[in-house]
């Protein structure tokens, strides 16, 4: 993201800042898909790691966002796709200098939950935000088949 765009987003202020760090275009596409439901979001950044990227360069990219958020007094939550993978390694290497939360296994339910609850005033405690997001992420995963539907033998609703 360009300098100017970052600056423009920061002006919104107040909102917890979100960074999504993933392999490839997953994060960017995920945000786009979520915006399909919730509309355009402010103060959300994505970083995609390509196969031939230098990890140090990406780390610097993330650090720049975290630094800016810190300076502006904005709290940050970093979503990563896989526990133990490169986006995770980069994020955790920065926890020493930045007081941010990292959530792994990002999926649509958890991102939607977080984006919705960060808007409302009474949910401004960051621990509560992350707890709710994790819960939504886990609860959004279910295994279903025909027996999950409450049907009679004839295929009608009971």
């Amino acid at each position, binding site marked *: 993201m360009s300098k100017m765009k970052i600056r423009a987003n920061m002006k919104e202020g107040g909102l917890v800042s979100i960074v999504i760090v993933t392999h490839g275009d997953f994060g960017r596409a995920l945000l786009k898909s979520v915006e399909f439901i919730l509309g355009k979001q402010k103060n959300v950044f994505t970083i995609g790691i390509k*196969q*031939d990227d*230098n*990890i*140090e360069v990406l780390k610097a990219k993330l650090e720049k966002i975290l630094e800016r958020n810190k300076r502006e007094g904005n709290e940050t939550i970093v979503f990563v796709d*896989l526990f133990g*993978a490169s986006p995770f*390694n980069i994020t*955790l*290497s920065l926890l020493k200098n930045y007081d941010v939360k990292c959530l792994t296994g990002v999926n649509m339910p958890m991102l939607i939950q977080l984006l919705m609850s960060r808007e409302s005033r009474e949910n401004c405690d960051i621990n509560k935000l992350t707890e709710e997001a994790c819960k939504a992420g886990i609860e959004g995963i279910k295994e279903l088949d025909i027996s999950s539907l409450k049907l009679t033998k004839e295929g009608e609703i009971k």
Partner: protein
Amino acid sequence: MGSIVFARVDDRLIHGEIMVEWAPRIKPTTILIIDNVLAADKMMQNVYTMAAPPGIRVKVMDVETASEEWRKNRFGQEQDRIFILFKTISMAKEVIEGGLPIKELNIGSIGKRGKDIKKVTATIAMDENDARMLLDLEKDWKNVEIYFQTMPGQKKLSRSYILEKYFPDLNSVTETNL
């Protein structure tokens, strides 16, 4: 005594490819990262050991400690299968020259960094210094097979193929010196 079952240069160390593709195939009991910088960074060591793939122990050592541990107890018990990871070619060279019995060295992933770096595969970028180190290794340690391969399903590319293709001058210089 443990046995070294795999050795790889990968500047991302433990990451998605290692967890999902390599570790299930190699089935190591231990992933040993040998790196002087990481061995001095307690925080990042903690990140890698905490995020170890299920059932695998992660250890981090500097070159000296690794050589010592190998001499003392061959990295552990008889059933121990050691997967060694290096961040750089120079670290691998140092360890092999220190006497660790590495028979095959997989060059897996080295990101682009700065100028004068040649991209030799989709995920491996090397400068002349890297290439020279690989040449020296094969010259002085004839039984170390060096090959380039990012993912297990891909074809292995030999050291000589890559060096002749991307660093032809280096090859001829070395040959005339011989």
